[in-house]
């Protein structure tokens, strides 16, 4: 069974990523169960999706230390979700920070570099995704969810491969948005191929 946490800031497209992963896993014959953050938090708050893939899954939520994989759209949210990560779990983190209004108001600057430094020290199986390059390659921030899907699927972190991810994409994404999303998937898969997972942690 794979327990997966997807986390980010409301509006970044975490819900669609969890649906795409669920669809691809379902197509492969797995049972799926999961839970979304839908509501007020989608207005720029912290959002977390739980995805459980396997057989005979009971609860839609993952307990602390129960996630084999965390996909984080944002460094600060990655640190916030860290208590979910299992001891030998893997993490994919998008390195571009989303500023928080609370920081901009002077409650302490948000130091994203410190978050990444901590993650590197703490998470053995860490993949840091270059946010600036991804946004440039995908023509904006709309498709970063699919780029991260490409990274995780091609990187062998999910129970399906890039081609199976593409099938889910074709089933779930409207035709007019398919091209940009296929490009994002390819870009993510290429990132996974070029950068082996960092292993400078414990």
């Amino acid at each position, binding site marked *: 069974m794979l327990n997966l946490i997807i986390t980010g800031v409301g509006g970044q497209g975490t819900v669609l990523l969890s649906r795409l992963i669920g669809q691809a896993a*379902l197509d492969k014959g797995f049972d799926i169960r999961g839970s979304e953050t839908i509501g007020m938090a989608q207005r720029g708050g912290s959002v977390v999706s739980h995805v459980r893939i396997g057989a005979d899954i009971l609860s839609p939520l993952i307990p602390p230390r129960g996630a084999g994989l965390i996909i984080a759209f944002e460094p*600060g949210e990655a640190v916030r979700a860290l208590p979910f990560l299992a001891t030998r779990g893997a993490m994919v983190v998008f390195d571009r920070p989303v500023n928080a209004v609370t920081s901009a108001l002077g409650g302490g600057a948000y130091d994203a570099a410190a978050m990444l430094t901590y993650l590197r020290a703490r998470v053995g199986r860490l993949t840091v995704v270059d946010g600036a390059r991804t946004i440039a390659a995908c023509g904006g921030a709309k498709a970063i969810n699919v780029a991260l899907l490409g990274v995780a699927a091609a990187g062998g972190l999910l129970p399906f491969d890039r081609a199976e991810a593409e099938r889910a994409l074709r089933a779930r994404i409207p035709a007019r948005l398919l091209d940009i999303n296929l490009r994002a998937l390819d870009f993510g898969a290429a990132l996974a191929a070029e950068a082996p997972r960092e292993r400078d942690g414990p």
Partner: protein
Amino acid sequence: MERRLLMGNEAIALGAVRAGVTCVTGYPGTPSTEILETVARQKDGRIYVEWSVNEKSALEVAAGAACAGARAMVTMKQVGLNVASDPLMSLNYVGVRGALVVVVADDPGPISSQTEQDSRHFGLFAKLAVFDPSTPEEAYLMAADAFACSEAQGRPVLLRPTTRVCHSYASVTLLDELPRRAPEGFHKDGGRWVIFPRLSYQNHLKIESELRALSDAFSAYPHNALTGRGRLGIAAGGVSYPYVREALADIQVDCKLLKVSTVPFPEALGLSFLEGLDEVLVAEELDPVIEDALLRLCGRRGLRAVVRGKGTGDMPNAGENTVAGVRLAVRRFLGLPAPEGGEAAKADGEAGEAPSPPARPPVLCAGCPHRGAFFAVKEAVGRRRAVYSGDIGCYTLGNAPPLDMVDTCLCMGAGLTMAQGLGRVEPDTLHFAFIGDSTFFHTGLPGLVNAVYNGADVILCILDNGTTAMTGHQPHPGIGRTASGAAAPRVDIHALVSSLGVTALARVDAFDLPAAKRAVAAALGTRGVRVILFEGPCIAVDRGGAPCAVDGDACTGCGRCLRQLGCPALARAADGRAAWIDPVLCTGCRLCAALCPVSAIGGGGRPC
């Protein structure tokens, strides 16, 4: 048979379609909204779907359809049932001819709600059967059961999912459609549909005996179940049931497990459960409904089992249950040690102290028109004493610093009426009320009529962003489109307010700061009922234009834009001095450019 990845709300919708629903109404509210949206998306020509103006109207429309023999469904969140409670309480006495399923979604936590009320208690209060699913698969099946029960009883029935059923998803096996028949039509039936005291007394007697029979029937209902053996027993309902099963999965201790998915409580099944038990633990969210039913049963039958749960402090009596919390409670109840958790602390110690991620509460989006409206009012009022009464919607987020423009928020439509009461006590204070377009139609309108009729001294700011934003952009009467996407007459808010005799009425572009401030200033110069209609499209619907950018050389780093607007696109640049605008988030509304004292912000602007 097709297996499909469905969210709980989608499962309920497809379950209702399978059961032959022909009329679906509702008002959006988290976590219930996607149920009606999913039915509307089926484009099933056999089903009438509407977003009603509020939950009371929605329930009454559905009740009418059900009295004419249709299988009808109405959807809402738990606080919506408060609005719809008047028709619901009476409707149970009158009954229905077809079926009426009232889907009311509860929100333990609460995650996106004002209260943690438990609609199972509403079922007990209104003397209605309640179906309480624990998973999306079960919700899919229970939708049909609820219709069958309602039709058999001739009374409305509640289907009560909670957030972790509504917004969780699972692979659901879709079944064939059930037999359906055309609604019989309305039979006058010599006064059956007219509620009168004498009729209500007779019907009350009938309802009580029906509920006793239902309790017996529910003891054999497949979604109420008893397993296991031993002298210890755990009873659970809703999403707590899978939490308990997960906690029991790797435990080798004898234990009975009772699953309860209905109101009325299945007493015969409950008695089999209690037989021979020394102690019981009850895991459920919100109110101790199952716990109280078991206690009552013990008292009535003189049973000696100790019932542990919310009443004994063994389970939390507020907030949602968690997998870890239920696991801990179950292990403690069974006399087992707490689960291991030490490894994490050790690893953290090696890697040093975790840095604190920034607090990230929900905020008004970059480019939100409400920010412009709030800021214009704040600037125009200046240092005068004013109370800002808010309402339910995205604009409740105007409470956060630095805007700090929401002093009260109670329930849908309460802002304008509370402002009137505040004014009766503090006549020399300025009393503002903010309300969104959808909320104005929902329950704001009677408050405005009340203000005009009683000569209140208030300034009503209607924040018209052309959608029901917080719940995910549903249409409403001011938009000209129905839930199915068809064209509809558009109720013009300006004309409506004007027709009530409000003469101090202004209409401004929420993004035009100077004009908006002038409109507020004009309102400050008069007394009585004043209405300002702030118009500007929701940025999630109308994506805006090119982003703004800060000229780093011109910016003095005064921080005015950062301190006053609370826009998520604004931050300090890497040098810590100049302001910086995140081009990914900025939609070019130019509100920050309008207040920059040195005109250092360029770009942006809305496409014409």
